């Protein structure tokens, strides 16, 4: 093996040797530098390989003396990994900056090379003063690189940087020299062993060293200078600072922290968490792309710092967590900065330009998701292990801080992603493609997946099947340029194959999973069939749709919480992309994502706490929890309830469902929401039997009832057909939540019946209305009307859908209502039950409004020639109608297996079957009989009417009695707008958007705090220096008190 010291030889020697190369041969100079970095990378890489394959770490001594007499360097696994990372990003960064470096000449190239070399040394060195020297090397080189692209701003940023690092270096030097005085050594290991913190002066010296290192990591709020550097320097340089420097300095803190006493872990943890939360909070208000990346970088470093500070609680997981999160940050942030350089747009709203080359958008999305910690990226596993470990250690505040910080980061990153996906890009210029800039980004983009997959294989408990189906996604993306029918067929075949493999076995073994798999996959196939109606390419639809279905399938087959969470996040990501495809979906996609992230973090915290209770991540072990049930159950329930859009957490739903595409709305409404239901069921099966859970169940019951009421009332006052259905979904999910919360046999039967029914009729309604909307080109019901003449197929579908939804016998909706009554009386939830019943009647208001305003009443001028809904929509719709009909005619076919299933958890007390006659504890009901009776009666009466009015003359729409006048315009004759005005006067106050206001106020607060808070960064370098000094003092006084 080549001694790692030769990294210095190559780096410095190369830099000096470059002086000989002709100043004219600029490309040669730069290429030589890249060769030098590659050689350095080869050395570190070979060490990494060696150490990973079981080699021993090596200590390099200089001058032929052992430490402390001379300087020594360590090449261990960490060092090898980090130097490899640094050299790799250095190499790619060099390629990226090729043009700039070439232009700036050989001196700049030398600076670049020395910069990378210096970072290598500060990772490896074990001598405090040597560390100081090379930190100075790096900071001067950084200042030089900032000057690489010389603008007024970059010079200012550079000067601020020099001022801040000047102070920091001075403090560090002071600390080092006193540490030497008190301990007699400059070697870090000796300093640690000397335990000089025991004396006051020594403690101050250690404080100075550590606080200087912390300051190098840009802690909040003493980091204004760093943000300026990120913003103003060349993106390629910023990428290096963010990826390489940060990595190196983080490791420095990592190795030097041992000189401090145990308190220091706390201080660094707190500093880190404040940084993580603080800078992400201030980032919320930022709209300059690179500065925002700076905020994010600083935040991520804060998280890493916090992780280091939490070392005492993380035990042997520390390195895994730190490395996964560090690597994610390293790859994603470098990639993002590079992207920023390629597209050259300052304002984040202009990042829509990415859509000119969709592959960039994919890369951007990848990096954003990797930063937030979505699977399959490494940070997902890091955060998972972090939360689990913290929970086991009882560090609840730390969990809260970390999750809040991550959430705040999610706000701006997803807003940004939303801008990129949705805003208009036609006015923006073309992207200039320079291959040397694109290749590094692409390599990092691929690498982040590879490393994520590798990390996944290192996790215990994660089945390889968890990422197998994900391979469909790149495949579908690869064929994205094909036409819709081909892709649709492939997608359907994919889902169908999966369904065919999974479903038959499940029916015997696990009814619950069978039902939900059926809803997810068969529902998926049916909604995908509607996709044939689309023309053109529909770019990007199929990968994300499949992503959602894969996520759903993973949730079902998860056997432990890790797999479950993995699937949950995959599903969230897929559904986010699906939702945001709608024309006006940008804000709704964002709010969906934010609620989803918040929910996911609640889940994560819940899973973490449950892990702390049982030390097992098996889902079945949830039932073994004996203490903390209230908090765990609540957290998990809240997490699932964000998906089921319970009251308070529902505001994302109406917009998201309403603005989504016609065949996406049923996917997200009829199918996706059931994931939350499934989660709640899993949770309650495991934990529902404890008295604490029963108490929460009581609360959930009320919540469900009120959700149902408010959802239906709000639906009745909508003018937008899809929004109406979306509110209806909220209330239906309220029913289901209510029924689940009863935690009794009948309650769960009700919930299951509602789930199945809601899937059937909401899919029908959303598909039909979506298809109608596709034809008429508006969501607003008052702009439609009288379409029954043009769209009889759609009308019949909606009619059956609303009859089923309203629960009117003889259709299947009644099964749910009947069970519901028995269940309510059984558990004695009379008032909640009455509220739910009330809301059930209110459903008539909006159902009538829906069918009347769209299909009945007056046909409008411009809709006279619209055609019936596309056959590709009709096929799934009528398939589902067939399902409703079968369920209605033979409810026992569905209900009996359901009863057997629910009996596993809640023994059957009263419900018995005699053929088609169900007898509950309170009542009885013969679904088949009612169907036949009503059918015969209906036919007889229809026959009678047809007989007596056989000669009726068919007239047209204005042939109505109109106070002796004739209507003049269909628009003025169609009663639709504000249809339930009287009702609104009486009960409208119930649906005053208090909750939306609440969340709006919260958002405003966050933005206001961010707005006023970030004025801390006044832009004056001197002020920043003051912050730095004040920060040092703050840490000092914190330490002594």
């Amino acid at each position: 093996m080549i001694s790692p010291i030769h990294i210095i030889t190559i780096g410095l020697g190369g830099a000096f040797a470059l002086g000989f190369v002709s100043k004219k041969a600029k490309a040669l100079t730069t290429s030589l530098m890249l060769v030098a970095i590659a050689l350095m990378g080869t050395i570190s890489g070979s060490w990494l390989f060696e150490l990973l394959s079981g080699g021993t770490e090596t200590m390099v001594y200089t001058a032929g003396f052992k430490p402390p007499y001379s300087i020594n360097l360590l090449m261990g696994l960490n060092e090898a990994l980090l130097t490899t990372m640094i050299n790799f990003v250095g190499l790619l960064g060099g390629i990226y900056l090729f043009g700039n470096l070439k232009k700036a000449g050989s001196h700049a190239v030398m600076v670049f090379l020395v910069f990378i070399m210096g970072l290598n040394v500060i990772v490896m060195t074990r001598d405090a003063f040597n560390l100081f020297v090379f930190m100075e090397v790096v900071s001067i080189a950084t200042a030089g690189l900032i000057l690489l692209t010389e603008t007024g701003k970059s010079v200012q940023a550079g000067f601020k940087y020099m001022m801040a690092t000047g102070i920091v270096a001075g403090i560090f030097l002071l600390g080092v020299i006193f540490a030497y005085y008190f301990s007699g050594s400059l070697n870090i290991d000796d300093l640690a062993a000397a335990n000089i913190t025991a004396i006051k002066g020594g403690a101050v010296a250690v404080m100075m060293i550590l606080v200087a290192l912390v300051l190098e990591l840009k802690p909040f709020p003493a980091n204004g200078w760093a943000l300026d550097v990120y913003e103003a320097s060349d993106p390629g340089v910023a990428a290096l600072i963010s990826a390489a420097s940060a990595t190196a300095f983080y490791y420095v803190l990592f190795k030097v922290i041992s000189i401090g006493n145990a308190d220091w872990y706390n201080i660094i943890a707190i500093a880190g968490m404040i940084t993580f939360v603080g800078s992400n909070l201030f980032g919320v208000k930022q709209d300059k792309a690179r500065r925002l990346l700076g905020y994010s970088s600083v935040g991520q470093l804060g998280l890493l710092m916090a992780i280091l500070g939490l070392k005492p609680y993380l035990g042997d997981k520390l390195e895994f967590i730190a490395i996964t999160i560090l690597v994610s940050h390293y790859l994603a942030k470098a990639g993002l900065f590079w992207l920023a350089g390629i597209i050259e747009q300052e304002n984040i709203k202009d990042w829509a330009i990415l859509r000119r080359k969709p592959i960039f958008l994919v890369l951007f999305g990848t990096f954003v998701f990797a930063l937030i910690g979505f699977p399959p990226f490494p940070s997902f596993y890091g955060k998972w292990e972090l939360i689990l470990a913290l929970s086991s250690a009882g560090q609840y505040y730390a969990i809260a801080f970390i999750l809040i910080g991550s959430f705040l980061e999610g706000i701006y990153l997803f807003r940004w992603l939303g801008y990129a996906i949705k805003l208009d890009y036609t006015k923006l210029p073309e992207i200039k493609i320079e291959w040397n800039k694109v290749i590094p980004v692409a390599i990092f983009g691929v690498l982040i997946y590879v490393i994520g997959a590798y990390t996944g294989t290192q996790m215990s408990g994660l089945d390889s099947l968890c990422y197998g189906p994900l391979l469909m996604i790149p495949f579908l993306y690869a064929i994205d340029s094909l036409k819709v029918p081909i892709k649709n067929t492939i997608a359907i075949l994919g889902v169908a194959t999966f369904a065919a493999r999974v479903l038959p076995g499940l029916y015997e073994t696990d009814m619950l999973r069978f039902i939900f798999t059926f809803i997810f996959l068969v529902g998926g196939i049916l909604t995908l069939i509607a996709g044939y109606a689309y023309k053109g390419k529909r770019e990007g639809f199929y990968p994300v749709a499949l992503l959602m279905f894969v996520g759903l399938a993973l949730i079902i087959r998860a056997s432990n919480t890790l797999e479950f969470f993995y699937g949950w996040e995959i599903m969230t990501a897929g559904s986010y992309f699906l939702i945001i495809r709608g024309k006006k979906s940008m804000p709704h996609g964002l709010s969906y994502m934010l609620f989803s992230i918040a929910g996911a973090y609640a889940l994560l915290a819940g899973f973490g706490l449950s892990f702390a209770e049982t030390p097992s991540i098996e889902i079945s072990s949830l039932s073994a929890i004996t203490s903390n049930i209230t908090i765990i159950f609540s957290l998990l329930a809240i997490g699932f309830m964000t998906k089921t859009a319970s009251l308070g957490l529902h505001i994302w739903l109406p917009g998201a469902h309403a603005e989504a595409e016609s065949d996406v709305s049923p996917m997200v409404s009829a199918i996706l929401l059931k994931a939350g239901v499934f989660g709640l069921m899993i949770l309650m099966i495991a934990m529902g039997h404890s008295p604490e859970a029963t108490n929460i169940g009581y609360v959930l019951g009320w919540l469900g009832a009120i959700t149902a009421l408010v959802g239906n009332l709000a639906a009745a006052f909508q003018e937008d057909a899809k929004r109406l259905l979306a509110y209806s979904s909220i209330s239906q999910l309220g029913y289901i939540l209510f029924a689940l919360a009863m935690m009794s046999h009948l309650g769960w039967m009700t919930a299951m019946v509602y789930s199945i029914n809601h899937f059937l009729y909401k899919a029908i309604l959303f598909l039909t209305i979506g298809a109608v909307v596709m034809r008429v080109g508006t969501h607003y019901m008052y702009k439609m009307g009288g379409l029954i003449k043009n769209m009889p197929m759609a009308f019949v579908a909606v009619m059956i859908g609303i009859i089923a939804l309203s629960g009117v016998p003889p259709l299947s909706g009644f099964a749910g209502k009947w069970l519901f009554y028995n269940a309510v009386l059984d558990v004695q939830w009379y008032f909640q039950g009455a509220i739910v019943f009330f809301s059930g009647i209110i459903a008539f208001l909006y159902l009538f409004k829906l069918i009347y305003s769209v299909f009945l009443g007056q046909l409008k001028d411009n809709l006279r020639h619209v055609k019936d809904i596309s056959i590709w929509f009709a096929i799934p719709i009528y398939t589902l109608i067939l399902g409703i009909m079968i369920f209605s005619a033979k409810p026992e076919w569905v209900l009996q297996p359901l009863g057997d299933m629910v009996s596993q958890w809640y023994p059957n007390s009263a419900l018995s079957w005699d053929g088609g006659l169900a007898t509950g504890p309170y009542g009885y009901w013969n679904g088949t009989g009612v169907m036949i009776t009503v059918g015969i009666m209906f036919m007889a009466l229809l026959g009678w009417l047809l007989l007596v009015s056989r000669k009726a003359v068919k007239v047209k729409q204005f042939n109505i009695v109109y106070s002796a006048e004739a209507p003049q315009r269909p628009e003025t004759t169609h009663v639709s707008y504000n249809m339930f005005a009287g009702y609104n006067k009486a009960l409208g106050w119930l649906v005053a958007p208090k909750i939306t206001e609440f969340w709006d106020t919260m958002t405003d607060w966050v933005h206001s705090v961010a707005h006023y808070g970030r004025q801390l960064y006044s832009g004056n370098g001197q002020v920043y220096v003051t912050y730095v000094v004040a920060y040092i003092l703050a840490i000092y006084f914190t330490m002594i008190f």
Partner: protein
Amino acid sequence: MEYVALTVGFIVIMAGLWAIMTRKNIIRIIIGFSIFDTGLHIVMVALAYVKGRTAPILDNTVALDDAVNLIVDPVPQALVLTAIVIGLGVTALMLIFAMKLHREKKTLDIRSFKDLKW
């Protein structure tokens, strides 16, 4: 003697900080940094001092055999050399920045360079 040096060093450090934090002229701020560095160097030398001893150069007055008892600590002296050179590099670079800043806005008032903020 060493106490005096240390005290003076600390005071110079604080004076440097004062200059850095209050002077508005960039050149003065850079001078402040130099003062700050100088203070550090004084402190380093003060720490190296051993009462009544001489410089760590072995010549006729300092016998090789008894050097341990005759010289002051050479390490901080070596360090201070390095620190001075580093300080020189930093100062040179800062001056470059100062020059460029002046070229940009024709002023050296640090308060005028607030284009980057928030």
